[in-house]
């Protein structure tokens, strides 16, 4: 089974996945039981190409400050953050904050 989702990296965060901006993934868990915490773990272990890059994505056991997390184009703060329950078809976007001007 598994949950089919789309995972995107924007704002230069695709460096952690060898420059690939968009991933179609099947999270190998039961729909209704998997949360955002599981997705972050899935990304950490299955999508980040080089383990050296994990600290670019994770700090203190959660997504690093400066990275915005969007669930279907909505800030994860409005969706329960790590408790959000994954659904098939969800789009998860991780974007670095840009500072340049």
């Amino acid at each position, binding site marked *: 089974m598994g949950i089919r989702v789309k995972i995107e990296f924007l*704002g230069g965060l695709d460096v952690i996945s060898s420059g690939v901006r968009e991933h179609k993934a099947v999270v190998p868990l039961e729909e209704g039981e998997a949360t955002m915490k599981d997705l972050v773990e899935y990304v950490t272990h299955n999508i980040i190409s080089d383990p050296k890059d994990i600290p670019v994505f994770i700090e203190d056991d959660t997504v690093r400050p400066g990275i915005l997390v969007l669930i279907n184009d909505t800030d994860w703060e409005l969706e329960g953050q790590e408790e959000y329950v994954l659904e098939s078809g969800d789009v998860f976007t991780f974007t670095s904050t840009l500072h340049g*001007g």
Partner: protein
Amino acid sequence: FPKIDDNFSLDEYKRYGRQMIVPDFGSLPSQIKLKNSSILVVGAGGLGCPALLYLSAAGIGKIGIIDDDLVDTSNLHRQVLHTTETVGIHKCESARRYINKLNPHVVVETYQFRLQNDNAFDIVSKYDLVLDCTDTPATRYLINDVSVLCGKTIVSGSGLKTEGQLSILNFNNKGPCYRCFYPKPPSPESVTSCSDGGVIGPVIGLLGITMAVETIKILTGYYTDETFKPFLSMYSAYPQQQLRVFKMRNRKPDCAVCGNLPQILKETILENQIDYAAFCGTVNSNVL
């Protein structure tokens, strides 16, 4: 330019006629609002140049420009308000010269130094709205904190390489602020400026123009407390150009500056208890 009625000269009616007839703009009352508005543009670089061009052309009454940097040849691929002739002079002076030629009805004030703890309140409090066109997180936090404490809405843009972000912060003192979005500053190693990371000229130019559009919408009263929804827009130039809108969190009750029990106060900043440069990496004087 003698006035032909209470509001404008004939030259101004000719100049602004083609935008006043756009229904969403709001016709003459909106043009009068622009004329009576003042904005502070922090940074006359890649974002500031196009924002200044289009906002001065649109007829904002007063525009303040603060930047301590001088025009350099390496700026010219993206900072199109400056030219080979103005290399070596202050960016705000270079910008002022062009704006005076483009639209003599705009009053331009320039500040040829860096926005800092000790001068920020005096300057920001003189304007209705602040455009954050800077290049470092330290200055972004300073602009945010001072604007929140002065009650000003911020139009915030940024960009790097082939992408950019746009937001409205502290809208009408009710919307979320930069610290609501980013309570913890990024580590200095993770921060890249346009000078370090590079940027495609029209990419940062496009972001500056989106800032001009939002500024016009705010000043003409298009957004109200009821219709404004916190957002962050993301522009990508590659593989295909896209500008997407993300729906963002509301103001956070525990925000350090705009929350219910703010720890950051005017005094905290004035007494240098917050060292913006130290808490999120050194400020590079070349990149404001």
